[in-house]
């Protein structure tokens, strides 16, 4: 990786350019979590695995370490080394692994 200062814009300009857009995205996440709380859980007694993964990733968002995007993507990745013979008709992905391996 190059120098840690490899963005051609300075820090103030980056904040000026992107702050409002990301303030809105933060509120989108908050309202999404509120919406889940307002929804009938039906038979789901515990947090859904995708919601758990999202909440786990939120911890990475506020720590002081670099490379947050990479670390969040890794936390949302399947870490299982098993390779099944077939997906048995499954085509899509869910966005988070069924079991979070830490």
């Amino acid at each position, binding site marked *: *990786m*190059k120098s840690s200062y*490899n*963005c*051609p*814009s300075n820090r103030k300009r980056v904040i000026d*350019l*992107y702050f409002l857009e990301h303030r809105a995205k933060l509120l989108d996440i908050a309202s999404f979590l509120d919406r889940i709380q307002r929804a009938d859980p039906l038979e789901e007694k515990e947090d859904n695995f995708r919601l758990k993964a999202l909440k786990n990733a939120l911890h990475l968002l506020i720590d002081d370490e670099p*490379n947050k*995007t*990479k670390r969040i*993507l*890794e936390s*949302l*990745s*399947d*870490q*299982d*080394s098993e*390779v*099944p*013979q*077939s*997906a048995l008709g*499954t*085509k*899509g*992905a*869910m*966005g*988070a*692994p069924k079991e979070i391996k830490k």
Partner: protein
Amino acid sequence: MKYIDPHVHMVSRTTDDYQRMAMAGCVAITEPAFWAGYDRSGEGFRDYFIQLTENEPKRAAQYGIQHFTWMSINPKEADDPVLAREVISMIPSFLEKPNVLGIGEIGLNKNTKNELQILEEHIALAVEYNQLILIHTPHLEDKLKGTLLIMDVLKQFSQIDRGRVLIDHVEEHTVEHVLNQGYWAGMTLYPDTKCTPERATDIIEMFGEERMWLNSAGDWGPSDPLAVPKTRLEMQKRGHTQKTIEKMSFENPCRFLSQSKKFHLNLES
């Protein structure tokens, strides 16, 4: 400024998209074989390959865009080895078509043994016919594991020049693996999954401009055929030079694709 979208599924798009892309400066596209949203029969593939090699170049030409393509059965259908082998057997005759640049997009979808076997057979075909290779990496939670598995398979083919293989749909957690092993890396610009123009620009800043390209992978799902020019605008907004922007959106795809003797741009047309 002219640009190339080196991965876009135009059979799923309207002619209005060709017009908008041309107006934004698109001079050429390459279209890898793709999943139609449902599993096809072998004969359905033959029709699709005819569409990619005969009909779509004419549609693109109406807007001054050159159309190139890649042959394969997409990883989403490669979990069925019987169908996959039927399709692979018809690929060699299409490799002779003037707009076919190589084998793609091949790779993995759900990281299964069936998909791995068909990936190996596709790579063997590319080696036999000395074709460029365009690799699809899986979606979301399957991407990291799948990317590593794909590179394990490629390693088995010691005769392959890694500079003739592009591994597409990289993100922050896979790009370094791909570049460190000597392959080209593609960044796909999607609204919800893969990279946004902002994140693709971040990756360029962190990992440089060598052996990387940008593409929209526009298809029948949520996607944007103007994602490449939007990323050029993002780079410009952030202070990147025109030279860097042109390298990412035109020169780099030219450099990789020119390794096929069939890739010639006619910029006067």
